[in-house]
């Protein structure tokens, strides 16, 4: 799939793991400090996995690899998240 998406597209892939809605969850970018809803992040999906980048500075916020049997969720680019209920 060429062309990136945004964090709205993360709602389904992450609903299997988190009990909160990721799209309205805000995250603070480790690189530039921007705090934004994940829906506003840039999302690059490929067969290898999903890369989530900061819309302000392009820093990698998160990486998701889901094989079906196991999932790997790397949030190393985010220093804090705030969850809306």
């Amino acid at each position, binding site marked *: 799939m060429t*062309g*990136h*998406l*945004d964090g709205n*597209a993360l*709602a389904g892939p992450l*609903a299997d793991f988190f*009990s909160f*809605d990721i799209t309205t969850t805000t995250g603070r970018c480790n690189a530039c400090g921007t705090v934004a809803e994940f*829906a506003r992040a840039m999302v690059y999906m490929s067969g290898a996995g999903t890369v989530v980048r900061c819309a302000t500075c392009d820093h990698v916020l998160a990486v998701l690899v889901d094989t079906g049997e196991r999932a790997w969720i790397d949030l190393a680019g985010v220093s804090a998240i705030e969850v809306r209920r």
Partner: protein
Amino acid sequence: MSADGIAAPPGASPLAAIRAVPRAGWHVATVAATHRETPNASRIELDVDGWPGNAAGQHLDVRLTAPDAYTATRSYSIASSGDSTRVVLAVDKLPDGEVSPFLVDDLRAGDQLEVHGPLGAFFVWRPAVESGDDRPVQLIAGGSGVVPLYAMAHAHADASDPTPFRLLYSVRTPRDVYFADEWRALAAASAPLQVDLVYTRQAPDDWPAPPGRITREALEAAVIPAAERPRVYVCGSTGFVERVADWLVGLGHAPGDIRTERYGGT
């Protein structure tokens, strides 16, 4: 409304608000009906077992599984909203696509699909009585990106919501307008809605502007001015959304007032 992450309205009884939030789950959907929406798109009505209802603007994921267990998952916006277990999609066919040609051309009443949802609380509109926000709303769509915006306009009319709504809708030709009859009915309903069309390939004969991609000037002329602080929803292909969002910021709209949903492509 029991969709994930959607708060109960402030006026609701506190007891009604105390309930386990259901996790957005997988459901079996049975195709109730399909029909041609445009020469290149189909409207698909699904009866979804156990569907908890959805807010206007949410989407779902469709998962197809081949006999060899290969799966393909794609997201589709929901054109309907409310408590019903009847869920309406509208899908555009990408000629070299893996999933959309099947959904548009091959799906028949009675077929079953796996769907995951309702999903996403960000690209959602709720009536002013629930959200407490009565600022005007500008909707901007390119092609199939109109689907969640149609759900919003429909919910707005159903609620007789007094919030001024305006839609700017970019389509290739007059035959490519999704929900053409419905837009006429919504524009005549009591909830205020103005619809502006931009034709990119072929315009009606008596149309004042030649067909062509939307320009910054055309955008400025057809959207609620930034001074009125509209809440703006933009949806369509990634290139369309990013062009429009950049122009909106240039026209003075606060980035936080602009909600976008990218469908992919360029």
